[in-house]
């Protein structure tokens, strides 16, 4: 697969001394669905706007198809962009909105109408062409915005938190639609969101942003199962965190001392050595409450502080290894009733389910 878009050491500063984004390196193959995920203010929109041509990088360069786009004005870049606000033209009907990019490209009327109809069909809005944007629901407007970004068949589509304003059900529907359309049309998609669930569902790969830097760039499952950064570990899904010091380093494993308790963890950084400060992360659903006759590589004593019934699982808050906020998710199956608030229990988890991440 060929590289479609590339960021090389890109940095951006608005005020001349603080960098809003820094050292961004990305290689996006053609046809990929890449999500930029990160908390508010982490520089996602800034990256997108630099790629779109509305901002220019203060350092580094952006390449599209191997060529720098430094001197290409926004209107010549020919990317499809879906803005967070949709940015539909309120004075034009839906069909006119869709025809706009075709008109400015001088495409003749018959072909134009054909493309507009096809785009409307793609987003399942046939028959809405004559409406004005303010006569549409939020989800419909959203779909018009997507159709407009696709109608002139761009090879690269950028979407900036397009689903932010929608309620959950509609959002899930639209996520499905977006993915379907992207696969159908085969465009390269760069998608911005701060909703990690959305990112997991949609993306081929996710770039996790924090404070203007990419913390980890990987497929959703890798981010979830093998985060190699404390921020990523806590940002993607829920994770228990235990702070400790490495005492022993083995082959891809290490032993960590947490508040006097010894924990075996998968070792993430190659250069980990005894004495390093690390955070050990364990997914709540990987923690079991052990019956007396079982044992796991990591087994600790814990006190049950509270139990919340969530439906398909129980959420048990435990005090263990000096962390009074340790969560275990216990599947809702027969026998769970044996755990009661105030009980002293043994909990355990597999070595490979917990990772020692270096604290910088």
């Amino acid at each position, binding site marked *: 697969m060929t590289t479609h878009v590339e960021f090389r050491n890109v940095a951006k500063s608005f005020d001349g001394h603080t960098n809003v984004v820094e050292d961004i390196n990305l290689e996006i193959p053609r046809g990929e669905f890449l999500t930029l995920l990160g908390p508010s203010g982490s520089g996602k929109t800034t990256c997108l706007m630099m790629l779109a041509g509305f901002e220019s990088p203060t350092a580094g360069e952006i390449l599209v198809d191997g060529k720098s786009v430094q001197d290409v004005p926004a*209107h010549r870049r020919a990317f499809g*962009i879906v803005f967070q*606000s949709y*940015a*539909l033209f309120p004075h034009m009907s839906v069909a006119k909105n869709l025809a706009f*990019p075709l008109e*400015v490209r001088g495409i003749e009327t018959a072909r134009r109408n054909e493309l507009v109809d096809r785009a409307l069909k793609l987003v399942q809005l046939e028959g809405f062409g004559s409406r004005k944007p303010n006569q549409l629901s939020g989800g419909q407007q959203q779909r018009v915005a997507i159709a407009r970004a696709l109608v002139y068949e761009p090879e690269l589509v950028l979407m900036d938190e397009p689903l932010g304003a929608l309620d959950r059900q509609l959002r899930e529907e639209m996520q499905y639609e977006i993915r379907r359309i992207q696969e159908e049309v085969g465009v390269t998609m760069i998608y911005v969101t701060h909703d990690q669930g959305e990112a997991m569902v949609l993306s081929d790969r996710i770039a996790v942003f924090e404070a203007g830097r990419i913390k980890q760039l990987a497929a959703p499952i890798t981010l979830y199962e093998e985060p190699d950064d404390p921020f990523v570990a806590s940002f993607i899904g829920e994770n228990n965190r235990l702070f400790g010091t490495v005492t022993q380093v083995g082959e891809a494993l290490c032993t960590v001392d947490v508040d006097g308790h010894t924990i075996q963890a998968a070792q993430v950084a190659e250069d980990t050595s005894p004495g390093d400060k690390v955070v050990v992360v364990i997914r709540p659903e990987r923690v079991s409450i052990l019956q007396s006759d079982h044992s796991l590589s990591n087994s600790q004593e814990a006190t049950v502080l509270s139990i919340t019934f969530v439906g398909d699982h129980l959420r048990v808050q435990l005090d263990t290894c000096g962390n009074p906020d340790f969560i275990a998710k216990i599947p809702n199956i027969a026998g769970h009733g044996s755990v009661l608030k105030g009980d002293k229990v043994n909990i355990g988890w597999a070595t490979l389910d917990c990772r020692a991440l270096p604290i910088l």
Partner: protein
Amino acid sequence: MGKLKASSLALPLIAFVVVTLLVPIFSLVRLSVYDSTVAEALPKTAEVLQAWSGTELPSIEVYETLAEELIAAQETRELGRVASRVNRILSGSRSTISKTPRRFARTDAPDAREEFIEIDEDWGELAIWHALRQATDTFTSRNFLQAVDFRLMPDGSIERMPESQQVYVTLFIRTLGVSIAVTALCFLIGYPMAYAMAHASSGWARILLVLVLIPFWTSLLVRTTSWIVILQQQGVLNDIFVFLGIVADDNRLTMVHNMTGTLVAMTQVLLPFMILPLYSVMTNIPRDLTKAASSLGANPFQAFVRVYFPNSLPGVAAGGLLVFILSIGYYITPALVGGSKGQLISNLIAYHLQTSLNWGLAAALSVILLVGVIVLYVVYDRFIGIDRMKLG
């Protein structure tokens, strides 16, 4: 019940609008078509003249009735007003009427008719009687006819004013032209200014806004007279032109006390009314719209023409209507800097109110102006839609 209470709270406001707006408009319209001065001063004459054939002099009895009432009118000091009303219909008849009651004592003619004719030969002509009969009509179209350069002849026929006296139509057209020109100028200057304000950094935007508002804090009189200082032949602008060698010292431009003065000063005075609605509409146009347009392939010019400008139209509509309506009735500025060539219809209305005291004509001119504005407003509403325009 709750609704009733809520609307009763609005009663003082409704009363205020009625008293300050509807009542004056009603009395204005009434003034333009209704005048009972003569009918009230000469009630019996009015009555008998209705039966008069109009083809020959009225009967002796009519002369007698008139004599009686003229004497009575003289005593109640109504005579002067009666004479001036008749004079508006038949010029020259003022003196005929006002001198008549004073002279009855000095004649010794056999009957009333002879007496009248002895006092003034005009009483033997049909014209003055036609004029008198017309003056006794309480409802008249005379003012409106005059306001469009026609006149009601004493015999009831309608004729164009002689060329030398045709002023009002020209003036209406001039007023319309000036209003359109001022509106256009305000748009041409105001649009880029509002755009600059709406797109400047917030610090600059505030400074520009203050600059636009400063004129509001200055007296209109001061602003207008300062234009005289700037534009007059020995004024600042001419000095600069001469200094720069653009015009010769003995050939200084006349820019004030004519149309140029009116246009320049009115545009400056009305500019804020264009800028403010535009500014408020422009600040509400999402920045993403133009970005979206260029991301879709529109160059900056296309993005402006096809996306930005249409979205600023409600501001253009509001500002345009405001400036236009204000300039149609503009008075002080043309009066001060307009000279004789830069006068507008409101200056003539003021003249008839204050100097010639022909309130009926002033009212008719005002009514025409008012109707014109209303018609324009309705047309405007049809094509642009009042609900689409935004004042802020």
